[in-house]
């Protein structure tokens, strides 16, 4: 059963004297537990598509079901709730709030879910332990390295136990050693059953996924399993 189903989605941006069609009718289905890398050059429409998947932006035409729920008909507040309960975001720039310590950063989505402070604290600490930063709960984002910040961001994305993790160039600001560590975490999470959609323009990052979807000029031009998928589930 597919957790994400996109059918003939079109996205237009208004520009001077008309509009620019960033997505020209995209259809895609992603099943529960998949690990999909979305690839393409800048301007290919992959980031636009990712924003639509993340319920951050609205599409012009077509239909999108997330968790069997049609996103196009939802209000702003319903979209916020959907992001809060179903999705986890990991960004290229980490996007931690510098004023808060790491535990509060991780617990932030729970504030909007109405979870008590003690419970937020407990769950944040558990996730900090899980990403190997258990001793840094009181630290602030500017006191730790980029790789550590990205791990905190992953912990934040996981705190609401989302169905889908959306990662937009998660290794774009990291060196190759740290990138490997982050991708290892993703692989582990996927093995635990979380659906992951990762946007990247780097082939070696995409190689970690199990399925690659290539974008060009607002269309899907390629959709195939990776070699990694072959290694993980060898043909019988």
């Amino acid at each position, binding site marked *: 059963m597919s957790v994400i189903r996109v059918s003939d989605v079109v996205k237009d941006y208004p520009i001077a004297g008309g509009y620019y069609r960033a997505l020209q009718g995209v259809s895609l289905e992603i099943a529960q537990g998949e690990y999909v890398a979305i690839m393409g050059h800048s301007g290919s429409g992959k980031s636009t598509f990712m924003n639509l998947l993340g319920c951050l932006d609205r599409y012009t035409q077509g239909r999108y079901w997330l968790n069997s729920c049609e996103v196009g008909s939802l209000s702003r507040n319903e979209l916020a709730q959907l992001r809060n309960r179903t999705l986890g975001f990991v960004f290229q720039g980490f996007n931690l709030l510098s*004023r808060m310590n790491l535990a509060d950063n991780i617990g932030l989505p729970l504030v909007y879910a*109405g979870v008590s402070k003690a419970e937020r604290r407990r769950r944040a600490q558990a996730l900090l332990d899980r990403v190997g930063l258990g001793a840094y709960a009181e630290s602030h984002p500017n006191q730790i390295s980029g790789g550590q910040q990205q791990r905190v961001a992953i912990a934040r994305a996981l705190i609401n136990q989302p169905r889908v993790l959306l990662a937009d160039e998660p290794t774009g600001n990291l060196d190759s050693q740290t990138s490997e560590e982050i991708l290892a975490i993703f692989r582990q999470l996927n093995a635990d059953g979380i659906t992951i959609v990762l946007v990247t323009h780097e082939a070696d990052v995409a190689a970690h996924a199990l399925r690659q979807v290539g974008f060009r000029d607002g269309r899907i031009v390629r959709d195939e399993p990776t070699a990694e998928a072959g290694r993980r589930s060898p043909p019988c």
Partner: protein
Amino acid sequence: MLIAMLGEAWRAMGANRLRSLLTMLGMVIGVGAVVLMMAVGQGAQYAVKQSISAMGSNLFIVSASLSTTSGGVRRAGAAKITVADAEAMMELPGVEVVGQSLHPAPVQVIHGQANWTASIVGAVPEYLDARSWDVVSGSRFTESDVKAATRVALIGQNVGRKLFGDEDPVGKVVRIKQQPFVVLGVLAPKGQSLDGRDQDDSIIVPLVTAQRKLFGQTGGGINMIMVKAESLEAMPSVEQEMRALLRQRHRIREGMENDFSIRDLTATANTAAETAKVMSMLLGSIASVSLLVGGIGIMNIMLVSVTERTREIGIRMALGAREGAILAQFLLEAIIMSVIGCVIGLLLGLVGAELFRRFGNTTVVVSGGSALVAFGVALSVGVFFGYYPARKAALLDPIEALRYQ
């Protein structure tokens, strides 16, 4: 959720301490000014009310005109009103009390080594009734004291204190113009009159004593007749009748000017009260302008803050913040700033009012009501001026906010 948001708002303000403090300063000045001005304004109203009630109610003051016209020539001080005029007024309907009095220049009063300059009032006993002026210790003089021109005196609070200190003045002797007077009683404190004189500096002696023994006047001339009407409603008719009576008694022909004047003290008092009220409102509205400016300062800073934190708002929205949560976050910040500013302003205003009272010699009235009003206004200013920036934040597009650099 609210506690978490309060903590966040506090941290957000702490991130820009100087800016938050300067923003609050606007509120501090605004609220402080409102509290201080209201205290001064209410103080002025209170002072006027005090002097009105000190004067007595439903009063007319009848006095000789300062100038009269006689044969085309204006002559100063020629006109007179007399004891006989006063006695005739007693007969008019609607008149309750008539108290005639003589008010010469202040003279020196001596007791032992102490001396003090007091205003002597020559009066009939009814004068005290007309003024609602009580004797707090000792007793009043009577009609027979007036007729016999005895040397007795009622002294004001201030006179008693200056001449006798802690001693009881009743039964003691003071010397006025080299003549011994027995102090019969001490008058109740009255405070300032509407024209600014301290009435507690008065000494009241029987009218005839003042006329004959102190100031050598003959012919029964007096300065002033105080007429107390039975009620406020009776005042217009009493005034008409008095005018007609005096014109007749003074033989003023049709078309000639009066040689006396009748002042309605209630009207005068009301005018004074009205003036004080207008002044109080004026002060309050000037102060309110500074409160308004303070509010605009908050709005300005909140708008800057929303722009600066656009990316943060985007992150929060991506993590599932609803419009209401973002709105509440920024609104709360504005409210906290205005409430803290208000509390500090309130304290400074109270301190200012106290300084005014001590060193400015002004009556100030600080009421819990005015403090409460200032607080409520500050809160509404915070909500009013914080709402627009907060709404702007809440309605941001998540993807644009996230992309904001």
